[in-house]
């Protein structure tokens, strides 16, 4: 099963991390990523740039492009992992380990259906 683990966090809090804190969090996350990769479970993982650099295309009758992220929320979508795991429990375990490395915020676990099967991440074609 492919799952996306979507990383939500309060951008203001992440920006308030000192450079040392930021490095420490990234190092701990890398350890979890390495473990998942070794188990053949890790697909692409992405850190999204700040929502202030985002634009949104609103699909109204005449689609308009506006500044900013789609949703103005307390916590923002800051990154995502694609994991290839046995089942939902397995995906939740991965998220739990990531959460221990990076407290605060939340991970949303969403199953993925792949449009283009021969480009399935982490698996053989």
């Amino acid at each position, binding site marked *: 099963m492919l799952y996306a683990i979507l990383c939500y966090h309060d951008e203001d809090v992440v920006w*308030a991390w000192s450079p040392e804190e930021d490095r420490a969090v990234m190092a701990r996350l890398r350890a979890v990523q390495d473990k998942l990769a070794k188990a053949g479970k890790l697909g692409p993982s992405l850190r999204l740039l700040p929502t202030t650099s985002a634009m949104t295309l609103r699909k109204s009758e005449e689609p308009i492009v506006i500044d900013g992220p789609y949703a103005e929320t307390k916590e923002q979508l800051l990154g995502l992992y694609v994991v290839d795991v046995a089942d939902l429990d397995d995906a939740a375990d991965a998220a739990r380990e990531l959460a221990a490395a990076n407290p605060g915020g939340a991970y949303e676990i969403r199953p993925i259906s792949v449009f283009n099967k021969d480009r399935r991440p982490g698996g053989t074609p």
Partner: protein
Amino acid sequence: MTETDWISSALIAARPQAIGALLRYFRDLDTAEEAYQDACLRALKAWPRNGPPRDPTAWLILVGRNAAIDAVRRSSRTEPLPADELISDLEEAETPLAERLDGSQYRDDILRLLFICCHPDLPATQQIALALRIVSGLSVAQIARAFLVSEAAMEQRITRAKARIAKASVPFETPGAVERAERLSAVAAMVYLLFNEGYTAGNDEARSQLCDEAIRLARLLLRLFQMEPEIMGLTALMLLQHSRAAARFDAAGENILLEDQDRSLWDDKLIAEGVALVDKAVRHNRPGPYQVQAAIAAVHARALRPQDTDWARIDALYAALERMQPSPVVTLNRAVAVSKVRGPAAALEMIEPLSSRLSGYFYYFGARGAFLMQLGRREEARVAFARAIALAGTPSEAAHIRSHLDRMMRDSAPTAG
């Protein structure tokens, strides 16, 4: 990250909004700051025990406001001391407050707080120090270290700044559109000053953190004013300049010029964000000086090698900047681009009229010397370089010019054999 790390990040993140709101209630900077400190102390006690509140900022504002009101009551001794249980029944009170915070008031709270720090009565150094103390929450010791002054001197600087503000009239009404735009532009200028304080400091960790802080404040402003192209430009400009931080100094701490930098050390993440913001800003068709300067920085950032730089584009952008903000320094910068596009003679002609206004400016003589050198006018180049060395503000500036001189002497020496 330990729990206290998480709490301290949350407190830093909430600070501008919380103090901004408390300032609106109490209309006094000291009271607002003390109320916030009080709320933070209570958070450090209550959050590890009860878990973090759903909305930390709303919690801090509410607790801070209650604490300040209690302080007034205590001092008048008409009410008994409040119990600590005050903190436990917040959940119900939090929700309506959080809803109120989502309004536009919150945007004006932060803008007002920043605007107070850059009050026109305050000299630039006091503006920055005050913003770092009040908005960013840096300790006096940290700020003193960044400004290379003693803690006592910095304490005094901040106290003086606060005293001036207390005397000045601070507008608390919700600003109109024009007033808001004026405030925003004053705040943007202060944030850029803060950035430059760190950027020009050289290879010093404590000071380069000022750049990070300026970028954090700019992103905060941009989040509040998402449609403002000049705030996009300001943020982009700082991101793009800061992206070169790791490449700007050699092991001895000497400045490395843009064309000599190892571009693989440039921070791609900051460049991507900066370039995206420049592109976003352009769509608004409301150009301004920050956007143009950011666009110039983006041209440099996009060039993988110095020879890939689109100098004609940089020339055109400086020409635009000259129209918006005529200044001999801008013309001087444009001349450098012109020397690459149309040759050193055209560049020299361009800066000739600036000689009286830039007669005490290091970069003028450095550039003049370089153009003359390219034209083979060695004796005149030597005179210009000598003047530049005399005007150099740092040893590394002087050393850089000396290396030009040395190269020229070497090149002109008769070859042996």
